[in-house]
């Protein structure tokens, strides 16, 4: 499926939702309460069939955090970006995508490590790169490095 056809299909299916374009891929922005339903639909609907989670990461937009998921349909040959916003607080909570795509396990570990966003229903949420004793989340914009290693 080419990009234009996918964008049309997405805007028909998700009417009233914000569908933009980012890095040449259709980007669907949804509320975080709808994240799981949308993800289930995108994976299980045969026209979309997004069976691979290529990348899951977070951008710090100062006022809020933006979760960015790159989805790919292997075999069908199309890709899209799924985005959701979460308010900025000490430890925001999002649903885990692990039950749909197991690749999410390490992506979400990394997000928890560097941005401090917790994931509901994640099998084993832990710090991936830093020590367990590390204080703070270093990729947040307001992180101040006080370490003298």
């Amino acid at each position, binding site marked *: 499926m080419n990009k234009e056809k996918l964008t049309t299909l997405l805007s028909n299916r998700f009417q009233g939702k914000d569908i933009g374009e980012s890095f040449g891929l259709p980007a669907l922005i949804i509320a975080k309460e709808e994240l799981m339903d949308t993800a289930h639909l995108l994976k299980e609907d045969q026209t979309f069939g997004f069976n691979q989670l290529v990348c899951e990461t977070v951008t710090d937009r100062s006022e809020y955090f933006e979760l960015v998921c790159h989805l790919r349909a292997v075999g069908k040959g199309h890709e899209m970006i799924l985005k959701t916003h979460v308010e900025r607080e000490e430890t925001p909570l999002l649903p885990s995508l692990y039950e749909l795509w197991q690749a999410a396990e390490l992506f979400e570990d990394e997000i928890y490590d560097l941005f401090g966003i917790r994931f509901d229903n994640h099998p084993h949420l832990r710090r991936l*790169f*830093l*020590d367990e004793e*590390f204080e*703070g989340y*270093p990729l947040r914009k307001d*992180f101040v*490095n006080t*370490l*003298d*290693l």
Partner: protein
Amino acid sequence: MEMKKEFLPEIPEEFRENLGRNVLVTTIDKIAGWARSNSLWPLTFGTSCCAIEMMSAASAKYDWSRFGFEVARATPRQADLIIVAGTITSKMAPVLRRLYDQIPEPKYVIAMGACTITGGPFAKDSYTVVRGVDKIVPVDVYIPGCPPRPEALLQGMMALQQKIKLQKAYVIEKPKDEPEL
């Protein structure tokens, strides 16, 4: 000085001629330094891009075997030398210290590259990188560069050989700035 005849060993007539060219007199310090410096076995330990230069220095083009760095050992128990080639993060630091502690004496450390000397490009603002490997293990030779050329590594290793040759056989000399742990 005159010596009494009875203190000189009895040397049979047929050996006397060979004595002059077959007996070597040296000191323990000198021969131990000679032996140690010419057979330094490095530990296979590389954490980033400096390790690529280190591998280049070990392979055919630069061939550090010419100077006695014969075999890189995969276990610290058989190694004499640890070349810290690459950035050391705070998570890697206890591993490096453990590897250093597992090397039997006499043991030597070479800090290769900017990251191991000061933290290099990460020195100003980083939440993980250790600013200088000499905070973890005592360092004998520092080699600047980012990364140093294999020639620079070889020169540093030969400087270590010179250092070993001047050391005493039964005294373990550590660099003065041994980190307090």
